[in-house]
């Protein structure tokens, strides 16, 4: 049974190989596709002959058991029939396509797409698990999108593909919903369970939603009214694709689903009216429209829609015999319609047109093809001695049986006979307008039969049509019985397949259909005129386009309402939303907002003064912000104040970090100010007042929130880190141990972000030409003070050693990679400031990119080493070593990680600053632009 999985996977596995082979030799692609299909077919044959199929066989593995998703396949009559059909017709299509594709077409793309599609179809046919079936279902939509749009340079191919994807994709989504509901009601997603739970499902209050959603999936896929319009538009695909997807297989997936779930969902009034109604309308509408199409493929597309409607109608009847007839017609339609599509392709290939108004008289030039077309079209029309006749007779007879359910005993038989009449008429038209009559004089004179191998697939299919039509009991009865048993999940009813059942009503209906068809065809000219002035003007595609356009318009309107492409508006919306959400939170909270403030530190005047100074400085920064350079002063006060607060409240690591960052940030801002206007514009008063109001509300909210948290009881997980820091992390400085050990993963992410930011800065500043701004401190023209130069020389080694010291002690005392990196970076930056960028770069070359890369590698290596030793990523270890002169040294592997952090921080900071400083050394090659927006 494991072979079954191989059968489904083979086409998927072959797809990339085919794509590769085609690049090597274009003739290899069809061969590889053919061999794949043939092997899968042989495997299926071997499997079927070796397995006891009196009951359905299932192979399953748990995939995500929590949501009921199994990787499960099923072998029973229906799945064998359907997968056999997919592979057999697929094989013929591959042979045909080998000769159809022109040298400009990419065979790798075509045949690997075809294989992907075949794999997805086999997945649908053989799935036991319903969710898995939906996955394959979506895969057919995607792969058919690739195939329909194969000629990407054609606009109608792209549009047709997009429309098919939109409609079938939407249906797939509905199907997923239906399947989930179904599984919820049944308690399992596996068909073996679901098929036995029909009574439960039909009694469930969720039955109607389930039915609607699943039918939405089936109807979109099988092009049932009102979703039929995508199929004619998908005819922009290459003809082998149309023959395969849009006649034999993909559109049958919807029918397959109806058949698969027939025992579960059928047998209710809702089923009868929904499925039967859609089927009947589609049957008639398709047949009627087909009559008036001038394009050969257009006629075949609508005739396919009509036949799909017929099969759907049969399943809609809900009786076991109707289901048998449905399966039978499904097989027959696949054979005659695929051959007719291939004939259309041959005609297009040889004459360069598919327009029946221009074609004619081809019977003399390609007699063999004409003979094939006549037989296949006769099968489509339901002429005796051909397979189409038998299934159509069964259809008429079933329609007579269930007619009373449709209101009156004569209405349904009348309508289906009318459908039969139209079918005969368009079948005659297909043959007569193409192979007889007079051709358009523009048509090329040198028309001959296609290459022999292009005709062979059609030969085979037509022989099947004839053989089944003449010896039905011998050839098809057993298979039909087997498949029908699987569809019904019960023994198949008795049916007899024979040419002659005696003079009964169905035979009369067939005769009327044939006679009426001839009559309608002779009246085609007045009928066409009538059609083109009436119903013909209705166009589902226009409706669809309008729908899509209005959807896009609605989406654009909503987006535009919020996103006007302005930062100010976006920020405002975000803030207002946050304020409303926060305000609602405060309002709906009923317990007292503030706690007893048990953990508050004692009031001391110095700290309080410091905080007040910081507040004043922040307000001053706002006040002074139009004068940009000046505004940096109060900003510095706030930053230093934050650092001091960290010192005051027991966070030495934070204070050190804040202090170093502050230094570097100020240098950055000063550098930037050289190229930006020195002043900011002041906006209009209403805007400032509105912004001030928002700012005030945000501030009040932040204050309340902060005080509410800080005044309450305090529970934390600090105890864990404090207790484990020494024993498990090997360090006394808990903050550092958390960074490099407990939360090492986070830190790894953060240094990656830092590295990315630095590289982003590097990339943005490449080849940037800025108009020279106001010459400020540090620009080339400014002199480098001697005292500063001398001092910086002295300071450099000291700072470097200090940085190293901070790095090494970080695990046990305040310090660590972040801080050391920033300190060393500021030491180097001091050099740049004192000596100018050119001079410093000549003196010491710092490989900043290398430092970033090496740092990331070190950090990653520490983590991987832990994996290598069998521990989770970034687990650290530590030990004590006796080292001569230095004494007892405690070393942790996390220190290597910290070294990585150090290198990244150092490299990133220096890279950013040096890049900014370099800007000044690029000679401006254009005169400074006038200052925009400076008041």
């Amino acid at each position, binding site marked *: 049974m494991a072979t079954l999985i191989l059968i489904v996977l083979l086409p998927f596995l072959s797809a990339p190989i085919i794509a590769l082979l085609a690049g090597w030799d274009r003739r290899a692609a069809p061969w590889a596709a053919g061999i794949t299909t043939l092997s899968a077919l042989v495997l299926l044959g071997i499997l079927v002959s070796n397995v006891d199929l009196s009951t359905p066989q299932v192979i399953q593995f748990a995939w995500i058991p929590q949501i009921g998703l199994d990787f499960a396949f099923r072998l029973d009559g229906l799945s064998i029939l359907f997968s056999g059909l997919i592979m057999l017709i697929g094989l013929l299509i591959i042979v045909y396509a080998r000769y159809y594709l022109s040298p400009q077409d990419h065979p790798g793309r075509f045949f690997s797409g075809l294989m992907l599609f075949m794999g997805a179809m086999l997945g649908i046919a053989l799935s036991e698990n319903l969710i898995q079936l939906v996955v394959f279902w979506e895969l057919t939509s995607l792969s058919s999108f690739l195939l329909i749009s194969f000629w990407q340079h054609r606009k109608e191919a792209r549009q047709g593909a997009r429309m098919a994807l939109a409609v079938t994709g939407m249906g797939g989504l509905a199907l997923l919903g239906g399947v989930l509901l179904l599984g919820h009601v049944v308690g399992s997603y596996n068909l073996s369970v679901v098929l036995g739970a029909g009574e439960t499902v039909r009694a469930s209050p969720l039955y109607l939603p389930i039915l609607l959603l699943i039918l939405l999936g089936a109807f979109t896929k099988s092009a049932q009214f009102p979703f039929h319009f995508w199929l004619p538009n998908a005819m922009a695909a290459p003809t082998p694709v149309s023959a395969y997807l849009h006649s034999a297989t993909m559109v049958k997936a919807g029918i397959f689903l109806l058949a698969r779930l027939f025992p579960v969902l059928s047998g209710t009034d809702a089923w009868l009216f929904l499925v039967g109604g859609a089927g009947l309308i589609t049957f008639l509408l398709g047949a009627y429209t087909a009559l008036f199409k001038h394009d050969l493929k257009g006629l075949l597309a609508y005739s396919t829609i009509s036949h799909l409607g017929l099969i759907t109608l049969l399943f809609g009847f809900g009786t076991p015999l109707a289901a048998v007839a449905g399966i039978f017609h499904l097989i027959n339609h696949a054979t005659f319609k695929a051959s007719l599509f291939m004939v259309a392709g041959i005609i297009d290939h040889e004459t360069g047109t598919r327009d029946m108004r221009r074609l004619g008289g081809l019977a003399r030039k390609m007699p063999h093809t004409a003979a094939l077309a006549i037989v296949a079209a006769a099968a489509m029309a339901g002429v005796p001695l051909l397979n189409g006749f038998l299934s159509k007779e069964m259809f008429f007879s079933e329609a007579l049986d269930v007619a009373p359910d449709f209101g009156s005993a004569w209405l349904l038989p009348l309508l289906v006979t009318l459908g039969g009449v139209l079918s005969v008429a368009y079948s005659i038209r297909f043959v007569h307008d193409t192979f007889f009559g007079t051709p358009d004089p523009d048509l090329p004179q040198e028309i001959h039969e296609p290459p022999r191998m292009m005709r062979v697939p059609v030969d085979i299919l037509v022989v099947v049509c004839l053989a089944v039509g003449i010896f039905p009991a011998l050839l098809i009865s057993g298979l039909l019985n087997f498949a029908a048993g699987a569809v019904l999940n019960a023994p198949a009813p008795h049916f007899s397949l024979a040419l002659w059942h005696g003079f009964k009503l169905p035979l009369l209906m067939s005769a009327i259909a044939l006679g009426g068809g001839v009559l309608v065809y002779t009246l085609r000219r007045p009928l066409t005129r009538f059609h083109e002035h009436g119903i013909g003007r209705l166009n589902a595609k226009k409706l669809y386009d309008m729908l899509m356009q209005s959807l896009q318009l609605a989406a654009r309107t909503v987006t535009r309402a919020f996103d006007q492409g*302005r930062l100010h508006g976006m920020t405002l919306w975000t803030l207002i939303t946050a304020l409303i959400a926060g305000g609602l939170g405060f309002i709906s909270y009923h317990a007292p907002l503030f706690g007893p403030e048990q953990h508050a530190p004692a009031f001391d005047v110095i700290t309080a003064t410091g905080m007040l100074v910081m507040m004043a400085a922040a307000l001053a920064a706002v006040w002074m912000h139009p004068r940009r350079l000046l505004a940096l002063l109060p*900003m510095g006060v706030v930053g230093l104040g934050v650092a001091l*607060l960290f010192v005051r409240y027991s966070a030495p690591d934070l204070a050190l970090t804040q202090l170093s960052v502050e230094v570097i*940030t100020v240098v950055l801002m000063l550098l930037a100010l050289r190229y930006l206007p020195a002043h900011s514009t002041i906006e209009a008063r209403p805007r400032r007042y509105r*912004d001030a109001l928002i700012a005030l509300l945000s501030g009040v909210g932040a204050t309340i929130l*902060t005080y509410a*948290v800080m005044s309450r009881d305090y529970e934390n997980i600090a105890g864990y880190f*404090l207790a484990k820091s020494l024993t498990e992390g090997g360090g006394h400085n808990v903050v550092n141990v958390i960074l490099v050990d407990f939360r090492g993963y986070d830190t790894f992410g953060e240094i990656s972000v830092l590295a990315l930011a630095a590289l*982003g800065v590097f990339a943005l500043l490449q080849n940037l030409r800025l108009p020279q701004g106001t010459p400020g401190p540090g620009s080339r023209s400014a002199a480098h003070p001697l005292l500063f130069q001398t001092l910086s020389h002295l300071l450099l080694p000291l700072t470097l050693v200090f940085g190293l010291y901070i790095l090494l002690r970080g695990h046990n005392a305040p310090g660590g990679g972040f801080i050391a990196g920033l300190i060393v970076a500021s030491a180097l930056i001091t050099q740049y400031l004192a000596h100018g960028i050119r001079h410093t770069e000549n003196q010491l070359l710092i490989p900043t990119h290398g430092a970033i890369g090496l740092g990331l590698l070190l950090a990653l290596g520490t983590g991987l080493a832990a994996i290598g030793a069998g521990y989770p990523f970034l687990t650290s270890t530590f030990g004590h070593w006796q080292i001569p002169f230095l004494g007892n040294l405690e070393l942790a592997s996390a220190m290597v990680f910290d070294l990585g952090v150090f290198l990244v921080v150092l490299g990133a900071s220096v890279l950013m600053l040096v890049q900014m400083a370099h800007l000044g050394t690029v000679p401006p090659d254009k005169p400074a632009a006038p200052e925009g927006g400076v008041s």
Partner: protein
Amino acid sequence: MSLLFALLVGTLTATGVFLTLRAQTFPVVLGLTLLSYAVNLFLFGMGRLASNAAAVLGAQTQYADPLPQALVLTAIVIAFAMTAFVIVLALKTRAELGNDHVDGTTDDAQKDDSSQ
């Protein structure tokens, strides 16, 4: 003391928000810096304010909560990286568009000017 601390966070938030809503790039950078101060202090405050209790084992018996400190430490560095990146974006805007308006156009500013 907590109340004063909360007021400080509030003030920094308010000033930060106001500057972030300005129409030119440099004030926005300043505003983001102030906002990051506010957020860092807020996070730090979640571990409560403790005196003489640095989380270095062996120095004393009472320790401040090390977790918010570790979070804030990385937040400071990330905020620095972000500030640097935004500053460079501002420079790039200036170079490409010839002005330092956040939306790359001075229409808004001109409109505001005329209505003033």
